[in-house]
C-alpha cells in the first residue's frame, strides 16, 4: 500500500476525531454544554471549559497531522499521532466529568403512572432496512473472506504503519478477528435495542399521550443512531477486511485497488464517528428538552436515592429495573445494584479485549 494512501487514511481519522470534539464543544447552548443539560445558567467557567477543549483539540489535531504527514521515524510518527488524538479525546472526557460535578440535577418527581398495557416492543423501534443492511454488512465480507482465505499465501500482511509499510505479517486466518469484531458490533447493536425496549416505562399521572409520543420518539432516535453508527463502522471494517483479502489474493499488496479499499474503509469509519452524531444528537436533545418540559424529567419512575455521582451512576437496590434512561446525557444505563448489570458491563468490556488479545497473538 502506498504511503500516500496511508497518509490519507491517517489524516482522515485525525480530522474525524478533531471534528467530533470540535462539534461537541461548539454545539453548546445556554442550557447545555457538550450536550449535557446544565440545569442552571451557563457561567463563565463553562465558557472557559469549552474554550480550553477547543484550543487543546486544535493543538492536538495539528500535532497528530504532523505525525501523519511529516517524514518522521515510524515509531515517533505513530506515537505522536496516537498520543495527540488520545490527549484531545481524554481532555474532553475529563472536562465533561468535571462539568457533570457542577450541574444541578432536576428535582425528580416521586409520583408517576404505569400502564397495564404492554409497552412498545423492540420491533416498534427498529428500522427493518437498516437491520437488514447491518446483517449484510457482516455476512457479505465474511463470505468473501471465507471464499478467498484458502487461496491466500501462508503469510500475508496483517497491518500497515502510517508510512504504508507492512509492519505485521501472519497467517491469513488471523484476519478472522475482524469478523469477530464485526459480529460483536452487531450483537452490541441488538443488545442496545433490547435495552432501549426494556427500559423503565413510566408516565406522568393524567393525560400522558404527548409524553408517550415523545418517549417513543426518544427511543426510536437512540436505536436509529446506533443502527447507523454500527452499520457505518462495520461497513468500514468489512470493506477493509474483505477488500484487502480479495486484493492480496489477486496479487500482492501494491495494487491500486488495495489503496482504494483502504481509503473507502477509512471514509466509512470516519463517517461512523461523525454523521450519526451530527444528525441524531440534536434531534435527541430537542426530544429530551420536550420530555423535561412535559414531566420535569426523563427518568420518571426511578428512585431519587439511586442516582449517585452527580446522576451518572444508578444504584437502586429497591428497584427491580435492569435498564433505566440516563439522567445525564443521552441513552440507556444500567441499575448497578442488579448483579446482571455487572455481567452485561463486564461482557461489553471483556469481549473486545479477548478478541484483541487473540488477534495480537
Amino acid at each position, binding site marked *: 500500500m502506498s504511503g500516500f494512501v496511508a497518509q490519507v487514511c491517517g489524516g482522515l481519522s485525525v480530522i474525524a476525531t478533531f471534528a467530533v470534539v470540535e462539534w461537541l464543544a461548539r454545539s453548546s447552548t445556554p442550557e447545555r454544554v457538550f450536550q449535557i443539560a446544565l440545569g442552571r445558567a451557563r457561567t463563565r467557567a463553562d465558557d472557559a471549559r469549552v474554550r480550553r477543549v477547543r484550543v487543546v483539540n486544535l493543538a492536538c489535531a495539528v500535532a497528530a497531522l504532523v505525525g501523519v504527514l511529516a517524514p518522521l521515524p515510524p515509531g515517533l510518527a505513530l506515537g505522536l499521532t496516537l498520543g495527540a488524538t488520545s490527549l484531545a479525546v481524554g481532555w474532553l472526557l475529563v472536562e465533561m466529568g468535571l462539568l457533570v460535578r457542577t450541574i444541578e440535577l432536576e428535582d425528580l418527581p*416521586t*409520583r408517576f403512572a404505569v400502564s397495564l398495557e404492554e409497552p*412498545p416492543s423492540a420491533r*416498534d423501534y427498529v428500522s427493518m432496512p437498516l437491520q437488514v443492511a447491518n446483517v449484510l454488512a457482516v455476512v457479505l465480507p465474511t463470505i468473501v473472506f471465507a471464499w478467498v482465505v484458502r487461496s491466500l499465501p501462508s503469510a500475508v500482511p496483517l497491518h500497515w504503519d502510517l508510512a504504508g509499510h507492512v509492519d505485521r505479517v501472519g497467517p491469513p486466518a488471523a484476519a478472522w478477528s475482524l469478523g469477530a469484531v464485526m459480529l460483536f458490533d452487531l450483537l452490541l447493536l441488538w443488545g442496545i435495542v433490547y435495552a432501549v425496549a426494556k427500559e423503565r416505562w413510566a408516565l406522568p399521572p393524567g393525560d400522558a399521550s404527548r409524553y408517550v409520543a415523545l418517549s417513543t420518539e426518544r427511543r426510536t432516535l437512540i436505536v436509529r443512531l446506533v443502527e447507523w453508527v454500527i452499520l457505518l463502522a462495520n461497513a468500514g471494517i468489512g470493506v477493509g477486511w474483505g477488500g484487502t483479502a480479495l486484493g492480496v489474493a489477486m496479487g500482492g499488496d501494491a495494487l491500486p485497488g488495495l489503496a482504494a479499499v483502504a481509503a473507502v474503509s477509512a471514509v466509512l469509519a470516519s463517517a461512523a464517528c461523525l454523521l450519526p452524531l451530527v444528525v441524531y444528537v440534536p434531534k435527541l436533545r430537542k426530544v429530551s428538552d420536550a420530555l423535561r418540559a412535559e414531566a420535569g424529567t426523563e427518568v420518571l419512575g426511578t428512585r431519587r436515592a439511586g442516582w449517585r455521582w452527580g446522576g451518572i451512576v444508578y444504584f437502586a437496590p429497591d428497584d427491580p429495573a435492569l435498564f433505566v434512561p440516563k439522567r445525564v446525557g443521552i441513552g440507556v444505563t444500567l441499575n448497578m445494584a442488579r448483579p446482571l448489570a455487572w455481567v452485561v458491563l463486564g461482557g461489553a468490556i471483556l469481549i473486545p479485549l479477548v478478541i484483541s488479545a487473540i488477534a495480537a497473538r
Partner: protein
Amino acid sequence: MDLGAYRQPGVMPTIVLDLEGVVPLYRQIADGVRGLIAGGRLGEGDTLPSVRKLGGMLGVNLNTVAKAYRVLAEEGVVELRHGAAARVLAPPPPEDARPLDEEAARQLVDAVGKLKVRGASEDAVREVFEGAMGRFYEEGAGR
C-alpha cells in the same frame, strides 16, 4: 408504529404510584387496580399482569405486588389462582335503595372526617366526591 391505546388519552389503564407518599405502596397498587375495576377499565374475567411482571413495570418489590393482590382477593375483587394469572371477579349485583353496611359507611365517613380535620374545604371535598361518583357510577363510566 402502532401504539394502540397509548395514542388515545384516557384510554390507557394506568396505576398511579407515589414512591414517597404516606400510603404504603401495596395499598396504592390495590387502590389503583380497584379503581380500574370500579371505573370499568378492567372487567369480569380480565386477567391482571403476573406479580413479577407488574413488579417490574412499577419498579417495586414482588412481595409488595403479591400483598396488594392478596388484599384485593380478600375483598373479593379478584381471584388468585395457583400458577395462573389473577382474574377479576364479577361484582356483586347492585343492591337498590339499600343502605351501606356499617363498615362501608364508617370508611366513607372517616375519609370525609379526615379531610375536614386536614383543612379541606367543603367545596373541594364535594368536587372530588362528585368526580368519583361520575367516574364509577354514571352510565358507561370509564369506557
